[in-house]
Structures are given as C-alpha cells and as structure tokens.
C-alpha cells in the first residue's frame, strides 16, 4: 500500500489509499492519522478509489481510526468505495458506522458549513 495525503483549503485532510489495506500495512495508515491528529488536524477523508481490496484487519484499522478521531473531537468520512469494497462494509455492517460518499470531492464538500 502507498498513500498520498493532502490538506485542502477548507482544512480537510485527505488520504488516498493505493493498493491493498491489509494486516501487513494497516499500521502505516494508523500512524499517518495519529501524526495528523497530533498536528491538530480534525477533519479527515480516506479515499479508496485506487484501492484493490481491504481485509478484516484493514477494516479494523478504520474502526480504530474512526474512534480515535471522534475521541479528539474530529470527524472521519470515507469515499471512493467501488461495488466490491462497499460489499465488505455492508456485510460487516460497517456501512452504518461510517459516513461514506461516492467521491473524495463530495466527502470533502460535505464538511462545508
């Protein structure tokens, strides 16, 4: 997995996950978010439009990240899930836990206001 992180003008921290999010690399994502939290970032979008697959450890990492962000008064939104990835969230009912947008742009825009 590789990921790119950027901060847009409205102050939303956008991370794009490229490749797989699995047990072997989930810690990288958790560390990146923790560092951003330590730097005061509070609004996050994690985008999966370039992601192949996610395993249960990857899903678990997202759950942990979401909890941590909430605990520090922040908000996390997900975007770019294709039909296959979305089915994993639906199977595990995690689609009810996360705010999910079709695209990163919509997710970023949903913070406005």
């Amino acid at each position, binding site marked *: 997995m590789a990921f790119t992180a950027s901060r847009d003008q409205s102050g939303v921290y956008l991370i794009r996950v490229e490749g797989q999010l699995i047990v072997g690399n989930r810690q990288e994502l958790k560390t990146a978010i923790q560092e951003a939290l330590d730097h005061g970032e509070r609004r996050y979008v994690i985008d999966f439009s370039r992601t192949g697959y996610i395993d*249960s450890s990857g899903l678990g*990492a997202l759950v942990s990240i979401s909890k941590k962000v909430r605990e520090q008064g922040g908000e996390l939104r997900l975007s770019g899930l294709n*039909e296959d990835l979305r089915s994993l969230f639906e199977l595990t009912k995690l689609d009810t836990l996360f705010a999910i947008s079709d695209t990163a742009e919509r997710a970023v825009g949903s913070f406005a206001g």
Partner: protein
Amino acid sequence: MTAPLPASLRLCVRRRRVPTAAGATVQVSLRVPSDVSCIEEVVDLLLRHCCSSGWLCRKLRFNLRVAVAEALANAIVAGNQEDRSKWVQVQAEVCGDQIRIEVTDQGSGFDPATIAPPLLPEELDRPSGRGLFLIKHLVDDVRFNEQGNSICMTLRRR
C-alpha cells in the same frame, strides 16, 4: 508499489497439471513464511497460477483475494504467532468449475464455533473479529480440520 517477492517464497511454489475424469486439474502448493508482509504477494501468486484471465468474474476474483488474504493472516498471526521459524502451507486445486484452497499453519488450532461475528450495534466498533465471518460470506464452502489449524475454502464459478 509492491515489494519484490522474497527468493525463499518464489522457490517454494509448485504447480502441476493432473489429468482426471473431470478434466485437467491444476494443483499449486506454496510454503509461506510467517511474515504478514508476504500476504499480498502470495495472494497475487495464487490467483496468477490458479485463475487464468477470465476464468473467474471480477466479483469472484475479489472474493477469492480477500478470503485468501484473511486465511493467511489468521494462519500467520493467530496460528503461528508470527514465529519466523514456522511456515504456512497453502494447497490450491482448480478442477472443473471450482477452486479449493487449503491453508494450514503450525499452531495449536482453534475452535471456529467460538468465534462470533461482531455485528451487534454495540460491537461494531470492535477492531477485530471479522476475518472468519468475511471468509464464510465470500466463498461457497468453508471447512476446518479437527485440530482447527487448517481451513479449506471452496469457491465455485457461476
């Protein structure tokens, strides 16, 4: 970018084609080190050897990838406790319209009946416990050996 396949892993792939009454059977065996960083490569390797282009539709290829990645993670982390002196044995067989993949670790095993999926609303924020649940929903059949250190997953083309 994916890291290069470790030489030790590459050397351990065995592939053979066996004629049977049901047609040619492709058998692949793989000895995997107890290292989670190998999982992505092993999944790619298995799919490449077992499922030629177009044999499985996109959805079933995705299901197989996730199920194999889960089984490997369980074997390496929960089974072998990431002990580098232990191995995970993977046996795959493609025959007719189905693929069967067996993943065996060197751990003491577990009782799959004791694993409850975290689907209750109050359990949704649990960070673990979804692996076996996902496997059972992504493939057509899941069986364990008596010891609980070997899982056999079957996926049928449709």
